[in-house]
């Protein structure tokens, strides 16, 4: 589904990704762990197409398309979802309005009719219910006044509504208390653990992986993947630290 080959990227002319390669197949859940400054968030933003994250080499194939040639909205329509470490507040724009427009924009790219208001509300209710997220909060402006945990749950509701093929979730576990962590973990499993979908979890800690068990764990350091393994690698990292494992 996703094939990253020797990806190099700079931010403000500073090289961050230095030849990162990774393949994710449908039905798989991968976790990328790594110390601060390793390039984890840069990987997410580069794949999402954030302005200022400049690709200087390598290639990314997503579902037989050149991902790097697509605009951010085209990447979304192609089935990519980027979960933000710090979800952005958009004053005055309600979650429901935003998500309905976003979903219909994606449908338009696929030549599908826009979803009716009633059908959209039904979908939103289902997905909010899954994350135990109050529908009234979806009527409020995007992320404005939400707590850290609410923002992360709201992102998972977005993911449920937009139904991507591949979710790249950047520290979705940060800012979550134990209960919220479990709800979010179950949400990820319910929405994304399917034979035709895949997930890339970017995280510092093992704790999210207790709920969303990865098939593969990678260690990112110095802008490339320095070690890959199964779920046991995350446990080893947790007990021994990055330096010992990645050295």
């Amino acid at each position, binding site marked *: 589904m996703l094939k990253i080959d020797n990806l190099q990227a700079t931010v403000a002319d500073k090289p961050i990704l230095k030849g990162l390669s990774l393949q994710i197949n449908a039905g798989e859940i991968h976790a990328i762990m790594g110390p601060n400054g390793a390039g984890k968030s840069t990987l997410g933003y580069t794949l*999402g*197409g*954030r*302005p200022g994250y400049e690709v200087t080499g390598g290639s990314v194939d997503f579902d037989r398309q050149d991902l790097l040639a697509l*605009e*951010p*909205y085209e*990447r*979304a*329509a192609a089935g990519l979802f*980027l979960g*933000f470490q710090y*979800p*952005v*507040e*958009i*004053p*005055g*724009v309600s979650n429901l*309005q*935003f*998500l309905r*427009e*976003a*979903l219909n*924009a*994606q449908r338009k*790219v696929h030549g599908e009719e826009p979803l009716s208001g009633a059908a959209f509300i039904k979908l939103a209710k289902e997905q909010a219910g899954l994350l135990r997220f109050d529908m009234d909060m979806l009527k409020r*402006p*995007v992320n404005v006044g939400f707590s850290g945990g609410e923002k992360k749950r709201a992102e998972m509701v*977005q993911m449920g509504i*937009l139904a991507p093929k591949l979710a790249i979730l950047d520290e979705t576990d940060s800012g979550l208390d134990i209960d919220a962590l479990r709800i979010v973990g179950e949400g990820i499993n319910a929405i994304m653990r399917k034979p035709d979908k895949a997930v890339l979890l970017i995280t510092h800690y093992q704790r999210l992986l207790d709920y969303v068990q990865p098939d593969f764990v990678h260690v990112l350091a110095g802008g490339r993947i320095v070690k890959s393994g199964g779920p046991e690698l995350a446990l080893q990292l947790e007990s021994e630290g990055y330096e010992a494992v990645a050295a």
Partner: protein
Amino acid sequence: MSAALALPTRKDEAFRYADLAALAPLWPVAVQEIRVAAGETGALAITANADAAEAREIVITLDEGASFDLRVLNAGHGYGRIAVTAVLGKGASFHFGAAQLGGGDQTLEIVTEVRHMAPDAVSRQVVRSVLGGHATGTYLGRVHVARGAIGTDGEQSIRAMLLERTATANARPELEIYADDVKCAHGCAVGELDPMGLFYLQSRGLPPGEAKKLMLHAFIAEAFVGAPEAEGLTETALAALEGLL
């Protein structure tokens, strides 16, 4: 008499940024006078969206305890000037919400003078400008609090969004206070759309134009919150916005 009819010059503060060449054929501008009797309520919504230059001058007098809600959409295709003077009696309440949208080499301006003449009057001004191309959008707003007008509560919230760096926004909120025990606040900001917000919306599937429109829609809507005609004004503003993006 000739003095009153003479075209103002740029030395006149209220016309400092005016497009005088466009104003000349419209001069002198007829004054629209509105008076709201004690305890009464009034409202007016003005949409200026003609192809030709437009200039309006409105003087509103609010007697004791009267209130008035004035909303303005300044989004014509030529020069657009709207000048408002509000004279507030004891305990009167004046709400002014305005949006102006311009592009090309247009000049748009909103000039207000709110005079708190007696105690306990309240004034609220919200002005939102969206400017593209080489357009100039100006807000000049003076809040005058007369001697003895204690308990005055005046607020100005002025924001401008530049779609391109070639556009110009002038914002000058002014307070002139001759009384003690008054509450007057103004906030003023000129900026661009938050790039992170735009990326966030695009990352969910909105094309760049749609993402901008959604954010600008919210920005403009702030001027019309609570107005009886809020929906109509916002819709007309959105149509004008289409032409700018």
